[in-house]
């Protein structure tokens, strides 16, 4: 089973996109911060220069004006006052040639409209501009002028605010553009990632759009190549399995199924928890086949067989589960679950009557060439051998009957408890939720490893009375309570999982009828939405091959629902009875469970074709009902190592 990365792990990992985006964002912000800093410093210098230039201009022009005062201090003071009051100066002073202060004006208080932190951050020094003052040829002294820094601080603060706003906008726009550019550049990577994730999930996605970037292009081409090869492998396995199935299960003349097919299908109906409690198995023999062959020739005889086979199909078409098989050259079997004896007899008579018309059509004598039909009314607790031998007996008797039809019935098994008693127990168990879980292991005999545990149920009536699944499920099926039981099991499992379920992985088998119920999917959806994420173990829901191979809308809905809540899908009762195995690729169950007899009866070609399919999509093969070491060894010889059944008790894990 493939090891996939969980959503949680993925979220913890930093994607390439995030890493590059983070790196470039930091770089962009550093560049912007540096540019902002440089800009601000330049503005600072420029403001300082401006302060000096203003002071210098004032000093020069004022010194020229002062020269016209011919050394009159009061005149010069007035001129200085006029200048000081009209401008923004920190001070204006006039010193004589001996550096003695003649006059000075100083700003008394500075009103700054900037915050304290800004004042602390910026150290600004307004340069003093000086000019010589002279009256005629005589020197008066030196005029010193310093501009007021308050103006500069206010200007700089406005500049800083403007810079911060514009740079924030640039940073924001830059980051958005960066994000978009990265998304465009790395878009092929998303495709590659999806393809890689699909490969992990054993899906085959072929990327049609080849990226322009060389590295990405090489990776995509490589992945496409790999995917094509695996896909080809799957298709080859699919074709081979179909071919082998045709060889193994089909009668080449009548295109009906053969005896092997019937035997592989019967376990589905002859089991303790079978939904169908019984039915009719008809054994039909064509007498006079050799004579017919001699009379009308091989080709015509084959056509006769075909026409008779069509009769079987036509007469049983109202039973969708009927299995029609050609058992040997002259014998056929029609296995009809849920068919009552009276209706079986009517069908047999219809077949017999119609067969006489068909035989006549080939100008054969009805007294020489005719059908005999033995009907056996079986019940689901019987073994395959019992059903077939009783059916053979019925046929043998039919051959001696005038009408060539004989009906035999299985002896009614004496029930320990009556239906009413079971109904009471089951209804009470459902009401009071008296079910408890038991589990048995599925083990990899080669790796000596526990693969998962299969969940089963018991009903605990009281301390001394416990009914096993095998005991109560047969009764539940007969009474029609099995669906309620499965609904109850699922609800309990999700809402209040048993604390004894302390293994990592459990599988739960759900029958065809339950899964096909109208409201099962919706109820499961609600249940999963509320509880699936807190389930303390990994759950695998097993679905019958009969359902899953339909690959219907419903099955796909189930698959999507399971995937959403990381619940795996398994297949049970697999006998490879499908026209196409594409459903295995589409649905990718994590394993296929088949009866050990099924695997053992397959030839090497069929198994290797099946392996080709399952290996290419990462599906494990599991043999169920493995009772002893001998069977295990035979399975291992066929390279099947994961087993379920009594033999697991003997495997040291």
């Amino acid at each position, binding site marked *: 089973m493939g090891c996939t990365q969980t959503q949680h792990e993925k979220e913890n990992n930093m994607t390439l996109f995030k890493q590059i985006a983070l790196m470039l964002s930091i770089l962009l912000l550093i560049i912007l911060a540096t540019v902002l800093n440089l800009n601000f410093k330049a503005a600072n210098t420029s403001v300082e220069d401006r302060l000096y230039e203003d002071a210098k201009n004032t000093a020069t022009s004022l*010194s020229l004006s002062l020269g016209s005062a011919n050394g009159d201090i009061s005149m010069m003071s007035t001129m200085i006052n006029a200048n000081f009051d009209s401008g923004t100066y920190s001070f204006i002073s006039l010193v004589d040639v001996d550096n003695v202060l003649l006059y000075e004006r100083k700003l008394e208080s500075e009103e700054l409209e900037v915050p304290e932190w800004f004042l602390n951050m910026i150290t600004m020094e307004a340069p*003093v*501009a*000086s000019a*010589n003052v002279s009256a005629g040829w*005589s*020197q008066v002294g030196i005029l010193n002028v*310093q501009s007021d820094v308050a103006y500069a601080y206010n200007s700089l603060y406005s500049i800083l605010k403007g810079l911060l706003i514009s740079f924030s906008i640039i940073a924001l726009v830059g980051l958005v553009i960066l994000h978009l550019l990265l998304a465009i550049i790395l878009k092929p990577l998303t495709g590659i990632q999806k393809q890689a994730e699909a490969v992990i999930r054993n899906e085959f996605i072929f990327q049609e759009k080849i990226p322009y970037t060389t590295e990405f292009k090489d990776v995509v081409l490589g992945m496409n190549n790999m995917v094509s090869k695996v896909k080809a492998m799957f298709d080859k396995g699919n074709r081979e399995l179909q071919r082998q199935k045709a060889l193994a299960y089909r009668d080449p003349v009548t295109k009906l199924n053969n005896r092997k097919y019937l035997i592989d299908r019967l376990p589905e109906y002859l089991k303790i928890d079978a939904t169908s409690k019984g039915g009719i198995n008809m054994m039909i023999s064509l007498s006079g086949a050799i004579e017919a062959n001699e009379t009308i020739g091989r080709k015509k005889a084959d056509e006769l067989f075909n026409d008779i086979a069509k009769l079987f199909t036509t007469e049983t078409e109202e039973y969708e589960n009927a299995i029609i098989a050609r058992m040997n050259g002259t014998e056929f079997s029609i296995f009809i679950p849920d068919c009552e004896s009276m209706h079986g007899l009517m069908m047999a008579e219809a077949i017999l009557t119609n067969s006489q018309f068909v035989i006549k059509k080939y100008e054969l004598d009805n007294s020489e060439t005719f059908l005999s039909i033995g009907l056996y009314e079986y019940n689901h607790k019987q073994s395959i051998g019992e059903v077939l031998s009783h059916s053979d007996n019925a046929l043998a008797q039919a051959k001696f009957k005038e009408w060539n039809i004989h009906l035999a019935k299985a002896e009614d098994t004496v029930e320990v408890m009556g239906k009413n008693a079971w109904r009471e127990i089951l209804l009470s168990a459902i009401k009071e939720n008296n079910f408890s879980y038991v589990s048995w292991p599925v083990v990899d005999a080669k790796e000596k490893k526990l693969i998962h545990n299969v969940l089963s149920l018991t009903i605990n009536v009281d301390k001394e009375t416990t009914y096993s699944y095998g005991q109560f499920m047969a009764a539940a099926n007969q009474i029609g309570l099995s669906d309620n039981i499965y609904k109850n099991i699922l609800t309990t499992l999700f809402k209040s999982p048993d604390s004894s379920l302390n293994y990592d992985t459990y599988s739960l088998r759900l029958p065809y009828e339950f899964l096909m119920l109208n409201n099962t999917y919706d109820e499961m959806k609600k249940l999963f939405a509320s509880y699936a994420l807190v389930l303390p173990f990994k759950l695998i829901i097993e679905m019958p091959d009969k359902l899953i191979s339909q690959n219907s809308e419903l099955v796909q809905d189930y698959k999507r629902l399971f995937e959403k809540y990381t619940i795996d899908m398994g297949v049970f009762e697999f006998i490879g009875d499908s026209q196409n195995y594409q459903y295995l690729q589409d649905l990718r169950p994590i394993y296929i469970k088949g009866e050990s007899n099924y695997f053992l009866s397959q030839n090497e070609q069929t198994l290797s074709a099946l392996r080709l399919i399952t290996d290419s999509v990462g599906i494990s093969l599991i043999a169920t009902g493995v009772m002893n070491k001998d069977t295990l060894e035979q399975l291992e010889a066929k390279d099947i190592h994961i087993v379920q059944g009594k033999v697991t008790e003997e495997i040291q894990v």
Partner: protein
Amino acid sequence: MNVFKLLLTLSVLVVSITYAQEPYVEKELLNKITKKYKMFAKKRFLYLQKTLDEVKDGSDLEKLEAVNVFYNGVRYMSDKKVYGKKDYWATPWQFLGKDRGDCEDYVISKYFALLYLGVDSKKLFFTYVKSSKFKATHMVLTYFKTPRSEPLILDNNNHKIFPASKRKDLTPIYNFNGESLYRANRSGTGKKVSNQKTHKKWDALKRNMKRKII
């Protein structure tokens, strides 16, 4: 005895070398000037050095006379013709190297030569004047013995130095002394100002002097 005489001679030589004044134009710079302005320029600089050396122990007046006479020997030519600019303050090396210049160039060269001779910079001013004779703006170097005394005028149009009162043809407009303004700037803020600026042309001249523009 001979050894004693030799030692004495050597001692006198060492002392005289140690205390001898650096030349106005150092040797390396003179070589560059020679390379750029050829041999006659070198000779002019050597003659300047000789002139300066002759008055180095004299009075301020003797120094003013010698420097004024020497530099007034340089031909007057407008900045436009010499430098292709309307107004350019040439370094003393450019002025004597090219052997031509306008009134500011005379003032600058005289000013730095006088500083070399030990005249106090506080006594020397660049003075913008209006010349009624030429009906044009003009610049002269003025020397104030004391801050309040009548200045002496060093004019490139006049080989003789006169007190200001004798120069009726000149109307003073503006006095300027770069060094005193530097000092004033420092005293104004109480701090040493980096990248000092006092007067745009003066600042540019100081930069050119520092970079030894010839």
